[in-house]
């Protein structure tokens, strides 16, 4: 029998090209392309009085300069609002090149095309943009005060206001035996893939067609947008996401200004044109995430059980809202985690500021929601003198309550119903893994050595695999090669390997015979994209269904060739054979030949399918009614709702008593994403997510000054963690298969990052003995908090019953 590959640590088929320098990223394509540089706004808010290009005209190698006035009508309109929502009453999107006004530092004003990037930048720096400064709005609380406006026609700077409520939460908080109010804040961070955005476009004048390579998370939707913006038939536009150097959310936004301008310029100029974003451009003109200010009011009983939860969120959406209000919707819904909140009310206000726009970054609003909920859990434990783990356990949705309806509307417009999960089991695993119950002893030992340590935990539930659909195509070629295609893209998650594992099992073919293509509209035209931890769920199930269709067809055709009942056949290692008598067999490649009745042969093998060779029943047509030639299948997977993965993290930190340096000594993860297709890949996703979680908790922030300048727009100043900062991760898995899909899988891509801020706040608070309410936290901020605590300005945290008693 063929060894089953789903569940195995199969080495990645992507790696051979990537470790030898043979990967193909966008900037590796097309060495003869013209190159683009942009003149971007140096001010956060200003009126464009004039653009003077005369100084640039004699720059050697200059090909073209474009401003807003040069754009055709379809490009002179605002870029698309991708996800409209009834609560998003004042959506605003930018123009490909600024029209009259700039709303953030980095907004593109002029596009320069030259023979290479060096000379494009030469020309760009000689272009004079005359700006009349307008007062900028920076910081979400300033935006809420609305003393100044980002968009003159948006009152109060409010893009959206939304309330969801289950029960009467305010009354429940009011009448509960205990209540608390927390004021919390989370700063901005960003996806920050190592490869920035990039676009390469080639116009074929003879064929009137366009081929675009883009470093995107959705090639099909970029294609649709380009066809619309450039007034081309879909059939004349190909978009390919080749190897993509990380995405983490920022590349799901589309079409970026550059993504429409570069193809347009290629057509205008009749030359290949490309643009490769540099690092500063990525900081100031792509997208950020996270920034929120939260107020939580909670009512609970003597046991720490929630009775009412009332949350208000101010969400900073930056200057524009092309991706709608997905991030605050996810915060508002996924905040609940594995808990039953009693009555719940959540209200968010999404606000414009003169900063880079906010769109999903891995976790997509969940880290902020989990921060609010888990800070609340710790505060309840503190108030009642209870073990933090115990308070969480008392509020869990129980396994026997699944499926569990939280009564809210999720980001896909569908009910927030958890499909499965065993939260008590996950917590038990985590406590064992980290040694929760033994930590008090460790703390005592550490204290005796003059060291200060703390432990924390945080739980989350993640809706993964959102719809509406993905498709899969499986094609067995007459060579025996199995070609698999799905429309969504890959940014390093190992989709080629993971999908090939699934097809190998479903079809019964060797892994090495399978070639998987993602994100290429030439191969698969219908898709949504890669986000929301959805590939294994959506494309995984789609290719599984397509492989089943192919298998069924192969068995039927082989049954005719072998004069056997298809039900008696099996496919093993690419050969169809009669169960129990393997000598009666036919290779799948021959079945592929037979599946396509031929008039003309082209080689020895294909002669078998020609008209004088096949024979058969002369009363039937060569291609039966309802059938089609070729051994291939195309299927779609479209679920009624998301699947809900979950996880719990625990960490031990040490804080230096003198310098306030924060070190993560241990980081433990228990993770349940249903059936694991490739445990090594899932662990890799968790490791990477944890690194981003630690970065977001301790190092990364976007530092805007009051004039809207991003002060740390470089890798020198924006502190992404190196190997020296990221702790080793200890993982344990629980597999609660999803009942919602054939493979039983849930998503895993974003999980690792979600509880990071909440977790480290919990652990640092435990080490220090005072409340941590804002993340990220640096050593100097911790040092300042200590001073305030010593001065009696901060309330002490009462210690857990479990980890120690009365130590502070």
């Amino acid at each position, binding site marked *: 029998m063929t060894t089953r590959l789903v569940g195995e640590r199969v080495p990645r088929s992507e790696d051979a090209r990537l470790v030898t320098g043979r*990967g193909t990223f966008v900037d590796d394509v097309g060495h003869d392309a013209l190159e683009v540089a942009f003149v971007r706004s140096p001010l956060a808010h200003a009126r464009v009085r004039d653009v003077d290009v005369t100084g640039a005209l004699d720059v050697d190698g200059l090909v073209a300069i474009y401003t807003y006035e040069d754009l055709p009508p379809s490009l002179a309109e605002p870029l698309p609002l991708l996800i409209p929502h009834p609560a998003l009453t004042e959506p605003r999107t930018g123009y490909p090149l600024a029209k009259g006004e700039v709303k953030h530092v980095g907004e593109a004003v002029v596009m320069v095309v030259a023979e290479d990037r*060096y000379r494009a930048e030469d020309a760009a720096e000689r272009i004079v943009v005359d700006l009349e400064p307008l007062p900028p709005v920076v910081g979400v609380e300033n935006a809420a005060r609305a003393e100044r406006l980002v968009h003159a026609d948006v009152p109060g700077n409010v893009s959206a206001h939304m309330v969801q409520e289950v029960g009467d939460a305010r009354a429940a908080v009011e009448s509960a035996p205990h209540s608390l109010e927390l004021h919390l804040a989370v700063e901005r961070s960003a996806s920050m893939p190592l490869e920035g955005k990039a676009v390469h476009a080639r116009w074929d004048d003879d064929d009137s067609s366009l081929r675009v390579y883009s470093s995107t998370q959705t090639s099909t939707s970029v294609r649709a947008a380009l066809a619309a913006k450039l007034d081309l038939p879909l059939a004349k536009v190909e978009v390919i996401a080749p*190897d993509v*150097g990380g995405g983490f959310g920022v590349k799901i936004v589309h079409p970026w200004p550059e993504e429409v301008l570069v193809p347009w310029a290629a057509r205008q100029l009749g030359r290949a044109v490309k643009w490769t974003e540099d690092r500063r451009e990525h900081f100031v003109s792509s997208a950020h995430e996270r920034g929120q200010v939260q107020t939580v009011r909670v009512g609970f009983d003597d046991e720490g059980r929630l009775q009412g939860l009332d949350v208000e969120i101010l969400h900073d959406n930056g200057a524009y809202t092309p991706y709608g209000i997905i991030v605050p919707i996810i915060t508002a819904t996924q905040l609940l985690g594995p808990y039953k909140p009693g009555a719940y009310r959540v209200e968010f206000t999404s606000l414009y500021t003169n900063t880079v726009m906010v769109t999903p970054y891995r976790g997509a609003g969940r880290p902020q929601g989990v921060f609010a909920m888990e800070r609340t859990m710790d505060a309840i434990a503190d108030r009642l003198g209870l073990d933090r783990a115990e308070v969480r356990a008392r509020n869990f949705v129980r396994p026997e309550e699944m499926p569990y309806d939280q009564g809210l509307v999720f980001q896909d417009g569908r009910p927030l119903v958890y499909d499965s999960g065993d939260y008590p089991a996950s917590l038990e695993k985590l406590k064992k893994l980290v040694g929760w119950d033994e930590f008090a002893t460790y703390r005592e030992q550490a204290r005796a050595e003059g060291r200060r340590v703390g432990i924390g935990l945080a739980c989350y539930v993640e809706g993964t695999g959102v719809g509406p659909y993905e498709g899969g195509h499986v094609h067995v070629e007459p060579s025996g090669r199995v070609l698999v295609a799905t429309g969504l893209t890959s940014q390093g*998650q190992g989709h080629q390997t993971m999908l090939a594992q699934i097809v190998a099992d479903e079809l019964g073919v060797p892994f090495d015979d399978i070639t998987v293509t993602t994100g290429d509209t030439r191969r698969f035209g219908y898709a949504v994209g890669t986000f929301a931890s959805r590939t294994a769920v959506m494309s995984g199930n789609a290719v599984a269904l397509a492989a089943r269709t192919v298998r069924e067809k192969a068995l039927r055709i082989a049954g005719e060739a072998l004069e056997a009942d298809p039900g008696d056949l099996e496919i093993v290692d690419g050969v169809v054979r009669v169960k129990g008598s393997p000598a009666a067999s036919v290779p799948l490649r021959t079945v592929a030949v037979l599946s396509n009745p031929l008039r003309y042969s082209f080689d020895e093998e294909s002669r078998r399918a020609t008209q004088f060779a096949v024979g058969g029943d002369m009363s039937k047509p060569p291609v039966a009614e309802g059938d089609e030639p070729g051994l291939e299948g195309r299927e779609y997977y479209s679920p009624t709702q998301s699947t809900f993965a979950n996880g719990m993290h625990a960490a031990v930190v040490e804080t230096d008593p003198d310098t306030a340096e924060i070190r993560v000594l241990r980081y433990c993860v228990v993770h349940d994403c249903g059936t694991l297709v490739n445990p090594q890949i899932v662990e890799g996703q968790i490791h990477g*997510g944890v690194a981003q979680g630690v970065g977001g908790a301790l190092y990364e922030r976007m530092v805007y000054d009051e004039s809207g300048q991003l002060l740390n727009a470089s890798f020198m100043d924006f502190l992404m963690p190196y190997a020296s900062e990221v702790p080793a991760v200890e993982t344990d898995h629980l597999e609660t298969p999803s009942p919602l899909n054939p493979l039983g899988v849930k998503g895993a891509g974003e999980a690792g990052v979600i509880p990071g801020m909440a977790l480290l706040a919990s652990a640092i608070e435990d080490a220090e003995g005072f409340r941590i309410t804002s993340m990220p936290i640096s050593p100097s901020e911790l040092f300042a908090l200590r001073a305030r605590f010593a001065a009696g300005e901060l309330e002490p945290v009462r210690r857990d019953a479990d980890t120690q008693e009365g130590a502070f």
Partner: protein
Amino acid sequence: MTPVPGSVDGVPGAAGEPRHVVTLTVNGVVRSARVPARRLLSDFLRHDLGLTGTHVGCEHGVCGACTVLLDAAPVRACLLFAVSVDGCAVTTVEGLAAPDGTLHPVQQAFGECHALQCGFCTPGFLTTVAAFLEQNPAPDEEEAREAVSGNLCRCTGYQNIVAAVRRAADLRAASSAGEGDRP
């Protein structure tokens, strides 16, 4: 380095910035191109020589994706001008494997340990670690982590990269032991 003042592609008197012939031994092969003085080594390798395995992540020497070996020592190709290394020997990620295609132990180990995801930063790690193992053939965990702590990766969380450094050291030791056994 042969300056050709006031000329483009060797045509004296044509407009444009002066170009210079830069000759490097890249992955054992002598390669030349005529480039402006400001051409970065990273762009020279990628766009003039077509060796696109070397990647550019920040253009200010922080991320390490563009690391190549210059006379066997790791350098950031985005911080060097091609003209300033004229005559040097450069090894890029394309030159790590043996001529018969056998992977370098570091390449082998990165695959085995799942030490890469998107693969964009990987060439810089591979060259860095290859040079490191020449200096320290048997690093412990701490030394392995230190060796890669000047390169940024946004995907892996580094855990498997650190494991791959040590795995590469083992593979390297095994292969050199094997060579020693030969008659």
